[in-house]
């Protein structure tokens, strides 16, 4: 084994060891959690309302799919209306998952004392919640300011008396970091000594959810294996692309080929559903498309003029046929001709004439203040800018003017033009470097934040996850 291979293997080995160690610290890394819910839609005939003259009147019906829980569904859906249902999956931050599970476990332990059955029905829910919220906020404020924090008591009796049930949300305003507020809530719950064994509280995403065991809720938040595998693939492909910096290798080649293949497939699918189906098939066969592919598409009469682009599109595919490839040239000729014509008009107006107009400006530029007086400082620099622009344009044009030999005055002016060009290229290169560093930073952020959970700039996991690693 030569020295290069040994070095490469050592780097990979160290990296794998670090990953294994990282996996046993904190709450792991590289996971994506989702909240699963039920989505249900129903097909309804909605009236199309005309309000042009101020009076609302119906102009026929429009068939469409609406959320089964929406007002439209309640008003217009019947028992026989077609319905579809599936499980919706919404990504949630790991913080929500950790707080919902770990926070709940911690609170269950804290609230293990039996519930005092004495109920005070005289306190209304709104008052109880607001008192509690303000007290928590005051406590958090005091802690953040380094002052003695007042004790906060959660009036569980009042909450129970007020009919507090599952899925009732209390908005807990956070002050400073959320962790301190969470601790304040736990402390308050422990200190109150007035807890309810049947009532638990889950703190998630800046909200507190109170549940009762009588109607227990199975948390819908859980690990998404498919998305987690996707995240790991993204990380591995990123590293595979980076590996080219060491030397060309099969990992890099694989990643490069996969990116090209997936991109082509994605383009094709997007092109089909965003362009060919609504814009071509939807024009030629609106009824079929509306009934089978795009239920939301407005029905209309077929527009047979769209046969022309359909035929041109089919001819372009003749490039793949064993015979008759020349037919694709007709389409290509059309594309080249149209593009040339479009560009000529746009470039003459937008680039040629507009840029000449922007250059031919008075050398003295007067900049006015809001009160109508001349701003000397701004006027001076605006004039310098205009003079520099004129010198730059003329000298660069001279440099590219080859009918006269670049000697004497012409040579010197052309030399100035070279300086302008070099400064322009330098600025362009500087911008390019800045752009590339930004892209590298974005990939590193992905690796450190989304994958390795080493940093948490967007507060995705701050309460629990990062603790075991760096803090």
């Amino acid at each position: 084994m030569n020295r290069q291979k040994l070095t490469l293997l050592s780097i990979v080995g160290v990296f794998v060891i670090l990953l294994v160690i990282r996996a046993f610290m904190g709450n792991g890394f590289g996971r994506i959690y989702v909240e699963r819910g039920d989505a249900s839609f129903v097909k309804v005939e909605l009236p199309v309302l005309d309000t042009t003259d101020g009076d609302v009147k119906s102009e026929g019906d429009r068939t469409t799919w609406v959320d089964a829980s929406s007002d439209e569904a309640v008003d217009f859906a019947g028992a026989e209306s077609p319905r579809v249902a599936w499980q919706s999956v919404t990504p949630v931050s790991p913080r929500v998952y950790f707080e919902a599970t770990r926070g709940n476990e911690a609170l269950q332990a804290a609230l293990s004392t039996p519930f005092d059955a004495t109920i005070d029905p005289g306190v209304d829910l709104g008052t109880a919640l607001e008192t509690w919220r303000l007290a928590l906020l005051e406590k958090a404020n005091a802690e953040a300011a380094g002052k003695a924090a007042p004790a906060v008591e959660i009036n569980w009796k009042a909450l129970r008396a007020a009919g507090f049930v599952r899925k009732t949300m209390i908005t807990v305003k956070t002050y400073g970091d959320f962790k301190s507020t969470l601790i304040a809530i736990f402390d308050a719950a422990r200190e109150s000594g007035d807890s309810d064994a049947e009532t638990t509280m889950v703190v998630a995403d800046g909200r507190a959810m109170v549940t009762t065991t009588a109607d227990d809720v199975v948390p819908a938040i859980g690990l998404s294996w498919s998305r987690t595998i996707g995240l790991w693939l993204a990380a591995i492909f990123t590293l595979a692309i980076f590996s080219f910096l060491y030397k060309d290798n099969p990992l890099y080649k694989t990643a490069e080929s996969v990116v090209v293949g997936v991109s082509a497939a994605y383009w094709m699918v997007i092109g089909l559903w965003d362009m060919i189906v609504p814009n071509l098939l939807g024009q030629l066969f609106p009824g079929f498309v509306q009934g089978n592919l795009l239920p939301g598409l407005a029905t209309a009469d077929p527009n047979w003029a769209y046969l022309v682009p359909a035929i041109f599109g089919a001819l372009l595919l003749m490039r793949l046929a064993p015979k008759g490839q020349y037919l694709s040239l007709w389409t290509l000729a059309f594309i080249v001709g149209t593009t040339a014509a479009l560009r000529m008009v746009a470039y003459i107006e937008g680039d040629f004439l507009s840029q000449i107009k922007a250059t031919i400006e008075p050398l003295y530029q007067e900049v006015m203040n809001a009160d109508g007086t001349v701003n000397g400082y701004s006027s001076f620099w605006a004039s310098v800018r205009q003079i520099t622009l004129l010198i730059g344009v003329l000298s660069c044009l001279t440099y590219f003017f080859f009918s006269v030999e670049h000697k004497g005055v012409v040579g010197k002016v052309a030399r100035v033009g070279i300086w302008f060009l070099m400064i322009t290229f330098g600025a362009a290169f500087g911008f390019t470097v800045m752009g590339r560093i930004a892209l590298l930073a974005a990939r590193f952020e992905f690796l450190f934040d989304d994958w390795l959970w080493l940093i948490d700039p967007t507060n995705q996991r701050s309460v629990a996850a990062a603790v075991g690693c760096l803090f």
Partner: protein
Amino acid sequence: MNLIDRMANLDRRWIFLMMGLAVGIPIIVIGITGKTLPEEPTPLAQAAFDVLDDLDPGSRILMAWDFDPASEGELGPMATSFIRQCAQKGHRMYFIALWPVGAQMIRSSTSRVIGGYYPDLVYGKDWVDLGFKAGNEAVIKTIVTDFDQYFPTDARGTSVDAIPMMEGISSLADFDALVNASAGYPGSKEWVLYAATPLKKPLVIGCTGVQAPQMYPYVPNQVQGLLGAIKGAAEYESIVNKWVRSEQLLDALESGGITEPASSELAARFAANPTEASTWTTEAAAAAMSPEAKTKLIEIASAPIPGIFLEAQRRMGPQLVAHLLMIGLIIAGNIVFFATRRRGGSQ
């Protein structure tokens, strides 16, 4: 072999490693501490903000996201801030993409900003995703006169006739301003040539560093606001962050009983210096406010800016260190060059 010879024959992979560390270490440090470098907005970034700020709430803004994940590092923060300013101002946003993956970028940025921070905005009434359309500049050229021809449905397949905010939109001329985040072709240049110039519409552009030098000549006649690369994004982000906080403070002050012009002046003061808010609430001028209103005011003034609205500013830290490294390497390279030439090793 002396130092000069070693440097002259330095394996380029050491430079890659140094650049990796120069970018990676600041990211970790900034990620842990949460500190970002201060940004002083340039007139170009301020002009980009002013174009959208000067429009009345409810104005129609066409937002073209012409980029892909490869340039998301530069353009993602711009897209986030554009949406935030429009959402906060109450503009109606119409998203389209001339790049296939731009459709994904629209979904990503709208779900992060609108879904996360402006959940009250209603799809179809306040914002709409019209998705990707193939055809490059031909799309722009067509929608300048006939919007429905290219966009019969939105990205979800709903007919535009059934989308309330599409009422009255028949061409690009019906929009009040155009916003474009662009990574190349088709992108900023095409929007300038085919839409902004003939229609004389205000156009705000956020583009990659590679494109920026090509776009500067269009300012200010054809392009009214230009954000070049991550630096432009960071400047614009800082303006929007400060303005949003100022707006929230103004709401809190006015709902607490403080009227104009005092409320505007105080909001601007507290946005610039958040610690002033808690001091002011103890003064006699704040006596009219209830304890709850005061608490809310302090809460808004001292609340940390959400991480997704600091992306560009976070990425300026690695920029600084990486640029210092590059300057150091350029100096070192020149020293090696001249030292080698003096010894007659290289001409």
